[in-house]
């Protein structure tokens, strides 16, 4: 069998050797070829010196005590006020999906599972406001998206007015997410009633005429003594309309639309990133 002459190492292969990012077999094979490639050996030596120097650079910072302001920043964010919501263990986004599927959300049952297995808050009492919120979001979606002539109260033409008006009524500075990268344009928005205060619906439409709605508003907080509701993204198909919802600092957001779950999730993330 003819042995191929040793090929000179490519840059990528050199990186792998310098950084040790290959399987032991791969690395051994590369080292053999390196032995026959003097050009590569010179570069390898230099890159390795670079890497070592970089690895040591400002290493004293690693041993420094963490400044107080940074410790505070790590404690910041209302994200983890609620009990049972150990996001760093489950991961924020997928946690909602995991909990959703794990607890049989697809069957649209068992709102008890809402806070996941570690919940200490009574299931039903905290489930009701969320349930109502998503229900209303889906109803509003079903009622308004089929409208041809007047699907919204204020159109995207008057976007600034729309945002100011709804922000005032919801008593919270609102921001309309920009979904043009995902192919969705703002159609407009409207004001809607809600349990804990007025709610808003923004409608978006893609080139094919497919519409999604973002429904948002204050969610009734549980009685004093119970932790505030904070959720990861939760997938909730209701009455045939898939939706993703989440609650952030007492405000609920529900994105509804007849899209595949993955596409809807991408939109939900894009929205969340901008809010």
């Amino acid at each position: 069998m003819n042995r191929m002459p040793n090929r000179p190492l490519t840059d990528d292969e050199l990186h792998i050797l310098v950084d040790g990012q290959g399987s032991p077999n791969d690395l051994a094979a590369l080292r053999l070829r390196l032995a026959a490639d003097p050009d590569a050996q010179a570069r390898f030596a230099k890159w390795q010196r670079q890497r070592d120097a970089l690895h040591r650079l400002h290493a004293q910072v690693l041993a420094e005590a963490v400044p107080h302001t940074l410790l505070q920043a790590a404690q910041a964010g209302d994200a983890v006020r609620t009990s049972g919501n150990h996001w760093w263990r489950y991961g924020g986004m997928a946690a909602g999906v995991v909990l959703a599927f794990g607890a049989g959300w697809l069957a649209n049952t068992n709102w008890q599972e809402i806070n996941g297995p570690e919940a200490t808050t009574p299931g039903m009492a905290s489930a009701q406001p969320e349930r109502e919120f998503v229900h209303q979001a889906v109803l509003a979606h079903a009622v308004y998206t089929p409208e041809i002539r007047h699907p919204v109260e204020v159109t995207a033409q008057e976007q600034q007015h729309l945002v100011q008006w709804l922000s005032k009524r919801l008593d919270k500075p609102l921001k309309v997410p920009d979904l043009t990268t995902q192919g969705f344009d703002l159609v407009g928005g409207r004001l809607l009633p809600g349990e804990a205060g007025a709610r808003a619906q923004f409608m978006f439409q893609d080139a094919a005429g497919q519409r999604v709605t973002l429904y948002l508003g204050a969610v009734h907080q549980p009685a004093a003594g119970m932790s505030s509701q904070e959720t990861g993204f939760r997938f909730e198909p209701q009455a045939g309309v898939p939706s993703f919802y989440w609650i952030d600092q007492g405000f609920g957001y529900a994105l509804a639309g007849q899209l595949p779950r993955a596409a809807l999730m991408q939109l939900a993330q894009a929205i969340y990133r901008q809010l």
Partner: protein
Amino acid sequence: MIDREPIVAQIPALRRYARVLTGDAWAADDLVQDTLERACSKWRLWLVGTNLRAWLFSVMHNLFVNQLRQSPGAGQISLAEIDDLVNELQAPASDPDLALDLQRCLLCLPPEQREVLLLVSMEGMRYAEIAKVTGVPIGTVMSRLSRARARLQALLDAPARVPTDPSVNQAAPTRPITLHRLK
């Protein structure tokens, strides 16, 4: 008590990376603070399957890129400036000066190359992880790494200028560089 320990444990590495990335201790801690605040408020963006460290670094990456967009040209010093600095560094360089030299050479690299090089060399991050953190295909990561290593080597190999005054004091402090603040 809610346990923030996993995040707090990442802070020293974040600080060092930010320090070398920006070349400025103050800007670095600002960047880390912004990162922590955003990470805590946007915790839902953390995908399970990504480890916490990689996610924190990706939050920092996005913030860093945004800061650069807002002040283009910031965070990178020109070759002319570094030539001036090389002039003033004594030769042979002792260890602290080598570190200074290395830091300043790093700042000559375009930010995207600097990031990749640091994540690989300082943090020992896998290439695939770096691709996720920086939001580019792995091929782009590798090509940036090649350019970074080649360019850094060229900068480090650059012939040291002889100071015009041969009696320059060996212990003379180097002129502090005014970097554009990344704000």
